[in-house]
């Protein structure tokens, strides 16, 4: 008990210093939490992709080359039982811009019949699926995009596609996919797009409709995925449009790493912030011990052993860093879960989801900083020669 009082007194005897150290640890931890939250968001998205047993088939040379829509029937014919390939969904990217809104959207046309079955992770309710099937202009909006643009179910909205037909397309929002892992992408019906494309004048020998950007192939098991990944490419080998089929996670990773290689750069940033927090904490602890060398000497001469001295110094540092770490972890958690900042969309990554687990992890890191920061001061405390320290007393 006495030791705890002593610890408490030590922390409160120089309040400005304690406060500033906590702040100097808390602020870098905030950045750490934010950058790991972004990485965590991407990983969650990728983990979901890995779980969904989906293959993505795209054109062998580049994602900008389209595939004939008729490939869907050929892929389906690989498994007449419909057990190993449960559904195939064609997808066509149209990008999209909203008037007076700077950010380009990510909007995709999908095959109307197979979309709900291929993407159960969109978690559409039975009514939403019914509305999707009923309404040719149905649009499923990504949750973050909907929040950003203020779109609600039942709204009538207009998107200007970035590719042919270029003319504005009108949609009825049927769902904002609140439970989906992908909060950004919007989906609408391919038959609507095809119909609009038929009105577009096209160069000779080329029709604008009847093409898709990718096929998403939902498989029954992991073994089926491995088998069909080869079988699909084999099927289209030596045809005018050869394909490249990979599992959804590899496909998505390839995309994400091309945007600034966000995961790598953010990991470096997170590492740097830990270093900054460590410097700040170590600085304070070394000053604290320097100021109190005579006290430590007194404690030693009174008979307190090295373990006690070591423990006292370590605990002081731990207390400082865990207060700082707690503040640093709690602030972004509260800000991004319980305040209007929740709707704030971060450029480049758009939606930020700060999960409890990320905050807890940073708290553990703060503990580690506490232990490391006190290592050298505690060592000095143990080795301190009582006589020399007391002699230097002013």
């Amino acid at each position, binding site marked *: 008990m006495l030791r705890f009082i002593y610890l408490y007194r030590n922390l409160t005897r120089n309040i400005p210093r304690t406060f500033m150290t906590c702040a100097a640890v808390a602020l870098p931890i905030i950045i750490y939490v934010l950058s790991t939250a972004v990485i965590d968001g991407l990983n969650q998205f990728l983990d979901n992709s890995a779980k969904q047993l989906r293959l993505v088939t795209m054109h062998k040379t580049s994602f*900008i080359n389209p595939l004939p829509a008729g490939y869907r029937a050929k892929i389906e014919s690989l498994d007449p039982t419909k057990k190993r390939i449960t559904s195939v969904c064609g997808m066509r990217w149209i990008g999209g811009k909203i008037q007076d809104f700077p950010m380009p959207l990510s909007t995709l046309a999908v095959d109307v019949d197979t979309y709900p079955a291929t993407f159960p992770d969109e978690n559409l309710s039975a009514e939403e699926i019914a509305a999707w099937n009923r309404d040719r202009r149905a649009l499923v909006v990504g949750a973050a995009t909907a929040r950003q643009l203020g779109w609600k179910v039942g709204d009538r909205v207009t998107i200007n596609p970035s590719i042919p037909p270029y003319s504005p397309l009108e949609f009825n929002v049927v769902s904002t996919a609140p439970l989906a892992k992908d909060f950004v992408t919007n989906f609408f019906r391919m038959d609507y797009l095809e119909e609009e494309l038929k009105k577009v004048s096209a160069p000779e*020998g080329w029709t604008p409709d009847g093409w898709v950007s990718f096929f998403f192939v939902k498989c029954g098991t992991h073994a089926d995925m491995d088998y069909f990944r080869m079988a699909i490419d084999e099927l289209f080998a030596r045809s005018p449009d050869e394909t490249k089929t990979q599992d959804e996670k590899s496909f998505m990773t390839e995309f994400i790493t*091309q*945007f600034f290689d966000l995961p790598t750069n953010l990991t470096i*940033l997170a590492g740097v912030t830990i270093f900054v927090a460590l410097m*700040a904490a170590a600085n304070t602890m070394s000053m604290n011990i320097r100021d109190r060398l005579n006290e430590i000497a007194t404690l030693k001469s009174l008979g307190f052993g090295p373990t006690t001295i070591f423990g006292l110094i370590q605990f002081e540092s731990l207390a400082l860093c865990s207060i700082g770490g707690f503040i640093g972890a709690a602030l972004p958690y509260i800000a991004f879960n319980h305040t209007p900042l929740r709707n704030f969309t971060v450029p480049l990554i758009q939606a930020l989801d700060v999960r409890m687990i990320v905050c807890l992890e940073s708290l553990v890191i703060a503990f580690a900083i506490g232990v490391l920061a006190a290592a050298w001061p505690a060592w000095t405390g143990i080795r301190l020669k009582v006589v020399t320290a007391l002699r230097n007393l002013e």
Partner: protein
Amino acid sequence: MVLPFYYNWRNLRRRRLSVTLTFFLVSVVVFVLAALLSFAAGIRASLAATGSSRNVIILKPGSTAESTSIMLPSEAARIVQAPNIAHGSTGQLLISPELCVQTNIPRRGPVGTPASVAIRGVDDIAYEIHAELKIIDGRRPRQGMMEIIVGKAARERYANLEPSGRLEMGRLANRVFTVVGVFEAGGGAIESEVWAPRTMLEDAFNRRFLSSVVVRLEDPAAARATIDYLNGPAVELDAQLETKYYDELSTKTREIVFLTTVLIGIMAIGAIFAVANTMYAAVDGRKREIAMLRTIGFARSSIMLSFVIESLLISTTACAAGLGASLFINGSRQDFLSDTTWTVLAYELRITPGILLSAFGLATLVGVGGALAPALKASRMRVIEALRKA
């Protein structure tokens, strides 16, 4: 009377560990600032160096970039009617029809992740219009040949783009093009591209349309009239100055600068607290000294100034060290995939004078901000009490 600089220097050396830790902390913050800003500066420099205010780029209305623009040859044919188009050396109108496609080329390095590199198909006239393009190695591709030239940035960043290297392209990826030259374009974005004869590219990718048309103006001052004509009912295409087109592509960098400002703002406040902590300790450890200085006649203001200088000494030398470290990343090649053009832009990280300035600004802020409160405390110290305490 001002305290001698030497006094500050000696004081710093007395508290070596604490000063070193603070020094490292500030230099890391400065380094992060410089590194993050160098991304934005590199991209901006590259895009700003692209395009000419004498050129007008024409796209299909509704498209957001060349790569999403599909223009029929019949639509492009209407462009010749526009006023104020310059004539070339042989008297023909300087109108360059261009086709932009992409192909995946692995990055250099052990992993070799594929990047979507822009391939531009042009006619010979394009070299008169894009006058900034200079062949630095080899020669131009000949029309009708499967030959390509590669930008300097693309050559450095992506694999197999050395002269006489071979690149498989096309809808079937079975057309082998040979690299016959390397070009530079004043550090502009087109240095990330590969250029090929347009007809060969049309054939290889089976595309019977154009992505964009670039025209050179006779009189840049009258650009408005030409653009209005092209956007108007006679042509009905989407024309803008080339410089404006590339400027709009660089809006993404504003987001990076914004994020950097927020992140560095938070870290800078943390650094101010750390510096303040160190300086408080310096003041507390020197109570008697300060009282003595006051007794022998140094004014409050000079004592305050002395502490601010001491703190600035730490933060500015740390800033210099941080910037020194950041020079190591200066010029290193990065690339990013634009979600507007869907092509990669290979650029160099740039530590610009502006970045140096903002780093020193940050260091000064941290130094002064951290020293202010402790210095005030020192200057307000009661002399007699401080001396008696001994």
